[in-house]
Each structure stands twice: as C-alpha cells, then as structure tokens.
C-alpha cells in the first residue's frame, strides 16, 4: 500500500521539483540541487522493508525541503487543505478506543526501519517526542508536552471550551495527519502514510482524552 502511494507521490514530486526549479533565482543553485538528487538516488539501496522508493518526495515533503520548513503562506495553505481533505475519518463516527492499548502503543518506538520485520506492527513512537504520563520520565521534547491533555488542549485560542467530541476529532485529525494543520511540522502523518490503523489511532486518542488515562489522571 505504501509502495503504491510512493509511486503516486514520485510523480507529484517531479512536478513540484520542476515548478520550484523554474523559480530558482540562482542557476548554480539549481545545478547543485540536481547533484544532490543524483547522489541521493545513487547512494542509497534497498534494505529489508526500507526500499529506495521511500526517497521519492510527495508534494508536502518537497515543499518543506525546498523552503527549509518555512514555505510561502499561499502554497502552505493550499497543501494543508489538500491534506485535510484526504483525512479518512472513522466511518462509525467514534474516535475513542482503549487508552491502555494506546499507552502501550505510545511507548513503542519501533516500526518501519530496515531492521523491522515486514509483519511487525509499528509503534506509535509518541514518547520519543512527547511527554504524556507523569510517571514515564523517559520522554522526548521534540513535540509539545501532552500531559493533562484535556486541560491544556481542551480550549480554543479564544478561550472557548471544546466539547469532548470536538476535542476527540482534533486529536484524531492531528495523529492521522498533523501536516493538515501545520504543513512542515516534525510529526509523521500516522494515518495518511499508513503507519497506524484507524483502531490504533483511536486507542491513542483515548490515551489523550480519557479522563482515566495516566495523561489526565495524575
């Protein structure tokens, strides 16, 4: 499934590359970019499940690379809207799974490397970048702390309290595709790129939002 996706994105990447190349002011810079691409294509090889088609950029990756994660606002908004439209919301309208399964998934940092087996289920990698529960002291700080998620993320910037359903949808959308809301954010697109299943994302939503989960309880 992922391979198919990359086949599709490689076409859009070439398109994106051409557009941006035309915009490039400096000719020597364009030559250098071409050299970079040649080297990248030449000096990686398939290993395990990590095939070289992973190097083909989709439109988001190409845009964020091109502008060092600060793209012009128009391009950004256009692509974000495209990404948001592609979010597949749960058909049953339910966002919450089991927070205990979510915590286990959040702890697991494995998945999708060349040393992972093809049938291995990728982890959520959440603690790699976020603080979640108070009792896990080994957490990363690449992303914001999600401790007391209900309390800290339950209001709009205008100060209005979100309903539980709204907050759940907010969390689901961000885990599914954070780039729909902030194009060049560091966070992987767990749903969009098929890393996690719908059920797994629901479990993570529950971890963030269930009042009984260690994220909110302590």
């Amino acid at each position, binding site marked *: 499934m992922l391979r198919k996706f990359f086949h599709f994105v490689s076409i859009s990447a070439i398109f994106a590359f051409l557009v941006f190349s035309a915009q490039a002011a400096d000719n020597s810079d364009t030559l*250098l970019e071409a050299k970079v691409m040649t080297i990248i294509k030449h000096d990686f*090889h398939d290993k395990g499940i*990590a095939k070289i088609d992973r190097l083909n950029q989709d439109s988001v990756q190409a845009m964020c690379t091109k502008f*060092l994660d600060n793209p012009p606002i128009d391009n950004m908004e256009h692509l974000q809207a495209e990404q948001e439209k592609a979010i597949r919301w749960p058909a049953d309208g339910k966002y919450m799974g089991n927070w205990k399964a979510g915590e286990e998934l959040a702890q697991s940092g494995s998945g*999708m490397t060349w040393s992972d087996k093809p049938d291995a289920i990728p982890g959520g990698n959440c603690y790699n970048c976020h603080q979640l529960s108070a009792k896990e002291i080994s957490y990363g700080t690449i992303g914001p702390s999600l401790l007391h998620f209900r309390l800290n993320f339950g209001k709009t910037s205008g100060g209005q309290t979100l309903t539980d359903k709204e907050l759940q949808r907010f969390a689901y959308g961000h885990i599914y595709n954070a780039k729909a809301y902030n194009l060049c954010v560091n966070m992987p697109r767990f749903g969009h790129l098929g890393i996690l299943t719908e059920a797994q994302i629901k479990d993570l939503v529950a971890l963030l939002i269930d009042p009984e989960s260690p994220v909110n309880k302590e």
Partner: protein
Amino acid sequence: MNAPILKNGFFVFLFSIYCSVVLAESNASDEIAKYREMISDGNPAEFDEMRGEDLWKKPSGPNKVSMQKCDLGKGIGIVKGAYAELPKYFPDTDRVQDLESRLVFCMTTLQGIPEKEIIAKPFGGDNYKPDIESYVAYVVGQSKGVKMNVSLTHPKEKEAYEIGKRIFTYRAGPYDFACSTCHGQDNIRIRMQNLPNFNNLKDSQAAYISWPAYRVSQGLFRSFQWRLNDCFRQQRFPEPQYASELTIDLAIFMARNANNAIYAGPGLKR
C-alpha cells in the same frame, strides 16, 4: 544501635556531601549528565585502538603491505592528527574522502583487498570485528587532543559541504524525516537523549569530537560511518552505501561545523 567504629571526620565530610546531593532538586537531564560522567573513565574503545595499531603495522592483504604506507592526508605514514583534518580533498583520487573511504582506498590499492569484500560487512557485530573498524579506532585515537581543522579551500570540498548541507534537510520516507527534523533545533531530546543541533557550533563540536565511540548498550566500538548509517535507519530511510559520496558530503558538513574544537574520541556512549 550497635554502632560501628567510625572514622569520624571523614564520615561527617562524606555525610554532608551525601545530604547536599539528596537535597538538590535535580532534573532528569542533569542525572543523565551525571551518569555519563560516571562512565567516562575506562573506555573499552582502548582495546580497539590497540588492535587497530597492531593491524596497522602488520603487512596484510594479497599484497602483504602494511597500512603504514597509507596517506591519510598528512603524508605517507603520518597518522597523528590526520583525523582532525578529515574529510578533505585528495589529489590522487581527485575527490573528497572521509577517513573510512580513504581507508577503503588504501586497503584496495596498497593491500590488494577487493573493495566489495571490505564494504560488504564494515560494521562489527556478535563475534565479528572488521579490520577497517579497528583501523578507525587507532587512527581517530591518534587525533585525541588535536584541534579540528577541516578545510573548505578546494572547490570540491566546498561543493561537498554544500551538498551535505542539503542532504541534511532532505525530507522523505514514511515518517517525513530529514536529518534536520531531529538535529536542527536547540535543546531538544528524543526520549532522554539530547539531540545535537548541527546548525549550532557548540552542539556540532560536542557531538563530532565524541564520535567514533564505544557504545555500551551494544558493547561495541562504532565508527562514524556506522553512526550515520544508524541515523538513516531510524530516519526510516533505505540504507546508505558505506563510504559513499552521500555519507562523505554529510560528514564534511558535520566535521567542518565542529572546527576549532579539540578532538576527544574515541568516545564512550550509552
């Protein structure tokens, strides 16, 4: 209490240290720093340096030539301080080479070992220690205390640096990661591990001078090429070719950013 006889003065002294340590509110990162300090003595990489030095001086390969004939950039036979100037442009190959690509070159041209053989399994594992890795340990150890001095005067060095800089920000793969995703911001960490920002002088220096290193979690000495290789693995990329232009360009970008630091490897890492 059945009190043992105490060496009183010393005891009071130690006890006061003990109390101050307990009372101090220290955060997790400070504790990790303390841990690193506590394991910094007694680095098993010394054994790899010793093995590397012995091998370096021993005639080997089909040609029965020792690596003492290898020119690491400071002239034939000069190992001292060589690593602090790598990667660099070599006129004899007309390209920029890092230590490991240069070692491959010497092993193939001087010793007559086929390149395929060397790069097939360049990293150690259970009961396996490739010679090239031991050479690395020896050579980098010979630059301990030497100031990093990577030049960009040759156009090919300059170009390699610029290419490395761009590879560093290339986002791709199932996680959308670039090197810079984790290594382009100050003061962030993955789990408990601090992530050096390679756009920042201090971080670049501290990181670069402590690699290659003995990895205690693996019980193995690890080369710089291994470090890059494992980064790409965790970036969810396919595998970079050992000692390829890609890795050399990245290496010169990182090494140059660490210039003027005193090289301190081989390091000792978690």
